[in-house]
């Protein structure tokens, strides 16, 4: 299974939001599958943790859930972004990009010093 990528606190939430933004309404398993695919299987979830994230997001009213039927006729809860979820995703994405940019700069600097 290789080395699992440690997820920073909150990054899973962001991934879930982005997944829902690109897939639209989706059930938990679909979200988990998508996250694994998109991350090139670098993020190997304990897939159960997706649900903790889903609950957190629901409490913030960023996503909503309703019962639906999957493509192969299974009953499951389908999650989708809310308006405030879209805004939150935008804000969080911007924030994330800034953080990663800063982190990248700082880390590059360290590598240069090491040299």
């Amino acid at each position, binding site marked *: 299974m290789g080395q699992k990528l440690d997820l920073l606190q909150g990054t899973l939430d962001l991934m879930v939001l982005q997944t829902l933004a690109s897939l639209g309404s989706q059930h938990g*398993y679909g979200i988990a599958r998508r996250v694994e695919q998109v991350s090139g299987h670098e993020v190997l979830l304990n897939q159960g943790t997706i*649900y*903790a994230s889903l*609950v957190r997001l629901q*409490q913030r009213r960023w996503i909503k859930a309703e019962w639906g039927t*999957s493509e*192969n006729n299974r009953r499951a*809860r389908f999650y989708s972004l809310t308006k405030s979820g879209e805004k939150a995703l935008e804000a969080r994405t911007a924030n994330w990009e800034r953080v990663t940019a800063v982190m990248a700069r700082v880390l590059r600097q360290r590598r240069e010093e090491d040299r």
Partner: protein
Amino acid sequence: MIAALARFFARLAALFRARRLDHAVEDDLAAHVDLMADDLVAGGMEPSAARREARLRLGNVASAVDAHRTARSFGWLDDAWRDVGYAVRTLGRAPGFTSAAVATLALGIGGVTLMYSVIHHVLVAPFPYRDAERIVRVFVAFGDSGMRPDVTADEFLDFQEQSDVFEGAVAADDDSAHLLGEGLAERVEIVRGTPEMFRYLGVQPERGRHFGPPDAEPHAPPVAVLNHRTWTALFGGDPEVVGRTIRLDGEPRTIIGVMPPRFEWHDADFWLPAAAPRRTSPGTADSNRVGQFYARLRPGVTVEAARERLNAVLQRRVTASPQEYPRPNTRAEVRALIDDTVFDFRAVLYQLFSAVGLLLFIACGNVANMLLARATARERETAVRAALGATRWRLVRQLFVESLALAFGGVVCGALLASVGIGIVQGWMANLEVPAEARLRLDLPVLMFATSAGLLATLFFGLYPALHGARRDLVAGATSSSRSSTASRRHHRLRGSLVVVEVALSLVLVTGAGLFVRSFLNRTDFELGFDHRKIFMTGFAFPPGPQFDGQREVFYRETLDRVARIPGVDAVAIVSTIPPFGYGQTSPVTLPGTANDGQTRALLQFCSEGLPYTLGLRVTAGRGLSAADVAGARTVALVNETLVRQYFGRENPLGRLVRIDKLPAPTTAAEPLFEVVGVVQDAANSGIRQPADPEIYVPHTLSSAGNRRLLVRSSINPARLTVAVRESVRAVNSTVALNRPGPLQAQVESSWPVSNGERFRIVVLAGFAMTGLGLLSFGVYGVIAYTVSQQTREFAIRLALGGERRHVASQVFRTTFWLVGTGALIGLGVCLATGRVLASQLYETSPRDPITFAAALGVIVLTGAVACAVPARRAMRVEPAIALRHDE
């Protein structure tokens, strides 16, 4: 911020939907497994293997649900629920400990709750009137402490018109009147109020209407508003009472309304409207009075500010008409309504509240002790829990939650106790110096107080044991017998010092109670010379008008005859002064034929022949008055022993003449010369604790001046005579009312120097002190019994080595004595240091009264001795072989 709130509420809601949400996530996870299995099957896997694989990949479902739960809830609150559940189960497993702790707390919390209810409903919010806390009384004061209770109509108007401190004002004039109605003849209390009175008080009538300005117009039909209490007592709660016409002092008035219960403005039976017209010609302050002035201050106006403004108004009046204000230092005074009603009783209530506070402390001490003992006994449990990974904080919280659960039980049971106490105290309230409107209740503010008392108590008794119980040495706690560990010894010292504190507090409580009891005994220690407890007394109220002129003697005679026939009545008499008080007529008396300097006076008692027998006074020489003496209005007299001693010396008074120089007119005696026919035993006649004055008893038929009262001695409880006496009087004449009927004892006890407030204080304080002693003995017993159980092995070894059993017992006693002695010394110091605050309220009793102190000490020491007797016996009976074998 809003998002945070939303999250908060979602979590809060989740707390109550925990079950459902757990199900929801389980459904989610089941769907997850199904969906993944479908995918895997589509990829070519066997269905059963696919499901297994799917479950594997999903990971630990339980931990996912748990993570889910953590995400959706306040972790600590969830834990707290679990703590509560655990605490309840733990306490339920130790019913003895739990009920003892809850009962102890209930006594303390119940006590403070009761006293808080009294204080809240007597001092803080006693009145049912609108914005009652802003109502003030205004009066004119002069000199150092003189006051004129009533204001004149002009002052009433000027105070309102020339100042801007009031929202409204009312004048109320107390009076009594003779009520005649269908089958009714009663002496009633009336209040004449300015027309805006009810609007100002802001209370609506229960039936009919109240009066307003039109009812006070000069030719308006006379009306009256009825008190609810009077409505029930005199009119039997007749729903048709509104519209009925009654006569008050002969004047017909229509009842227009009945006020709701608890409306007791000025304790009136009827409220009548009265205008407050300005005076047209100058006069003294005695004319044109409209009664006592009450006003509601505007919001934000202080009593001091109002006083200043009104005084300015008054000073203008003083300057304008000095003849109306002849006294020096005339000024306006303003006082809050409650201060005008309660006076000294406030101090009594605060004292009782501090006393009950001590009680609560003692209760907390006991429970803390019990918890510490339990913590020691549970060392193993705590150690195991700690070893299994419970954090210290978690353990502290667990123990603290147990304390909270105990406190909760204490609050609930305490509130029940308090409600019982409130019922009892409310019954006493009628006789106390409290507003008649005050009703004790267990309402929201009181319950909130009880709850805070419970929380505060938890901090006192629960925090330390919790912190302490959780500070465990894992290895020592889990493996060894805890008896040798230093922590136990620390517990032990702490428990000892708690007992010391309890002893000190109890001593303060008992000494305080003792001082007041002694003061009370000093006050009640009086000898009247007759037994006042068997005597019923009433005055008479005659309707206005001439119909009884010269006819009263006939009325009295018939009344005496009828009342004497009531079953259970032993003797009856008519008197002009009430025996122990002697606010009667006195006159100079001269003895013809003796040297007299004219300084001799005697109290005159106009009475019927039955008086000596009614009071149970012996005639020591000569004879008593006869029926013929009274009927014939003969000029004969009885004298008391004091008069004989002072005026006749050793001479025989019988047959001598006494001249009563100021016989009140109108009199039938041609000449005020009375022949002494007998000598009567002395009885108190000038106050309860005063020596008897010279007194002369003459037939009441000789003078028709002044009031007469009826005394009845009966073998039945005099309080139950009122109805029978009223019927007898009504049978003689249906228009005559009884005036203040009741047992003479009540009159004696309500008069100086024994106030009902004093009695209340004694009873309540004694109750608290007894409870405190009970708790103390319980506390001492607990500590000593525990010590003994801890020392069993030591005792056993000593006994095995040949130690004597009595030495073992004496060691137990020594331990007790050491604790109690230290506590008593501290308590004694506190009493001596704080005694001065009580000095002003004690009657002929020093706040350092040695007898009281000795008695209190004795009681405390005795309590300690009794409490340790059982453990000492147990220590003596230790069987070395058994004790040593059983000990680990």
